[in-house]
């Protein structure tokens, strides 16, 4: 009975690989090592942005060995995600797993060659975030780390649970060869934006700031910190809205701004192009300015 249980576990893992395998395509978008993509809806495939080294002549190869042309619908370097459209894709879409827990069995699965899928075994090692991606203003609200080996060509592949449902999209694009998994719900949110407009809108004000501790006079409620404006870019939304060097940024649309991450969060998505109420402390006096949030390219 004990040996049977181990055998059952073994078969279940092979079943999990088989299940996700049908949703994984090989992505030909760079000269040498092909990468992987995950079919997630209709004709759409999610992959890693960094594996697309060209914009034309992209192809994917499906589990049943069909080679199909692919077009880039949208891409976002800062989250390393891209959406491809593949006419006539017709493969099962990947199922999304329940939220990952540290310690869960995880399989990294990719389709780096026409020979079939490859897989490696590990666990969910860490769930982290939010984290700012490099020096850009993009934030990844959550990410997963795993000790499963990312083989060459696994970027754009899936980390799946023991049933073959996807925890997220695996990429080594954030440097040092370390694998980061972008959780499925986070990746699908970016994919939704990419299919709508081809890029991710990120707002900006055009200031350089540093965090300062607020004096009791400047403080309201529980807010301890604000952002001291040390530079205002010429012709920026901030300048047009009347922000000055020396202002201490306290809140946007009523959301307290304690640090740079708060500011980035306050400038996401649908606020781009719209006027927002910016509360600052100027010379110890609180006042509210109106700034139209700009679009960062």
């Amino acid at each position, binding site marked *: *009975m*004990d*040996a049977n*249980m*181990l*055998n*059952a*576990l*073994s*078969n279940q*893992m*092979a*079943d*999990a*690989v*088989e299940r996700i*395998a049908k949703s994984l395509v090989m992505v030909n978008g760079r000269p040498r090592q092909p990468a992987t993509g995950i079919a997630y809806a209709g004709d759409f495939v999610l992959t890693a942005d960094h594996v697309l080294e060209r914009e034309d002549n992209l192809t994917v190869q499906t589990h049943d060995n069909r080679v199909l042309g692919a077009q880039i619908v949208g891409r976002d370097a800062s989250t390393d995600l891209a959406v491809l459209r593949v006419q006539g894709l017709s493969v099962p879409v990947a199922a999304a797993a329940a939220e990952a827990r540290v310690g869960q069995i995880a*399989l990294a*699965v990719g389709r780096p060659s026409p*020979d*079939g*899928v*490859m*897989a*490696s*075994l590990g666990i969910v090692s860490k769930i982290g975030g939010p984290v700012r991606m490099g020096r850009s203003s993009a934030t990844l609200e959550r990410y997963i780390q795993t000790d*499963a*080996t990312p*083989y060459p060509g696994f970027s754009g592949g899936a980390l799946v649970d023991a049933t073959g449902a996807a925890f997220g999209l695996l990429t080594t694009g954030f440097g040092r060869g370390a694998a980061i998994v972008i959780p499925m719900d986070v990746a699908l949110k970016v994919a939704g934006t990419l299919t709508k407009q081809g890029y991710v809108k990120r707002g900006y004000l055009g200031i350089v700031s540093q965090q300062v501790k607020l004096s009791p006079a400047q403080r309201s409620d529980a807010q301890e910190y604000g952002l001291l404006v040390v530079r205002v870019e010429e012709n920026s939304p901030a300048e047009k809205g009347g922000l000055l060097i020396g202002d201490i940024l306290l809140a946007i649309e009523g959301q307290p701004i304690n640090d740079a991450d708060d500011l980035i969060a306050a400038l996401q998505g649908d606020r781009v192009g719209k006027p927002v109420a910016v509360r600052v402390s100027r010379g110890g006096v609180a006042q509210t300015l109106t700034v139209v949030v700009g679009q960062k390219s």
Partner: protein
Amino acid sequence: MKPSPSAAAQAFADVIAAAKASVVQIHTGGRGIGAGVIWRSDAARSEIITNAHVVAGAARRNGAGLRVVTADNCIIPARVLAGDPQLDLALLGIDMGGLPAAKIGDSTRLRVGELVFAIGNPWGQASVVTSGIISGLDSMTMRGMGRTAPYIRSDVLLAPGNSGGPLLDATGAVIGINAMIFGGDLSVAIPSHIVAEWIAGGNWL
């Protein structure tokens, strides 16, 4: 039955303990040791499969210094019955019978994702067990046999000293002989059905 981690761990330990009895160390008189699998055993003799590269030096000295160390620490002189450097397989004979021959699995029906483990002597440490899954089944040309056959790729951690040792499935059956070790996380094993074919077709000394 709902699998619990502790039950799985116990099952793992049981399967490994049983499989270890059929794994031997191969000492060649030189530096380093390899691993081998007791393929068959009768009342008086046993045959052991390993990699050709493990015994290459000893084979050049007509087998001088070649010894097998069993799981219960019997040290027995061995001779090379057959070797194929292209397949990287060698068959050794010892004049000791009654040894536990390994259970041989069906390597024609493997699937990516299957649980596997290896027993060997990485860096000379005796009888070390590592585990992982089958990462890929690649078709490579088996030059020695004039045809192609799948090689088993796995993410099991192996090191020199695992060469010639078994890759086992979840039931403890040998599905491959660990051969090429690319260091770290991608290892290649020769499927056991290829080993069986090679043994069946050989001309023994």
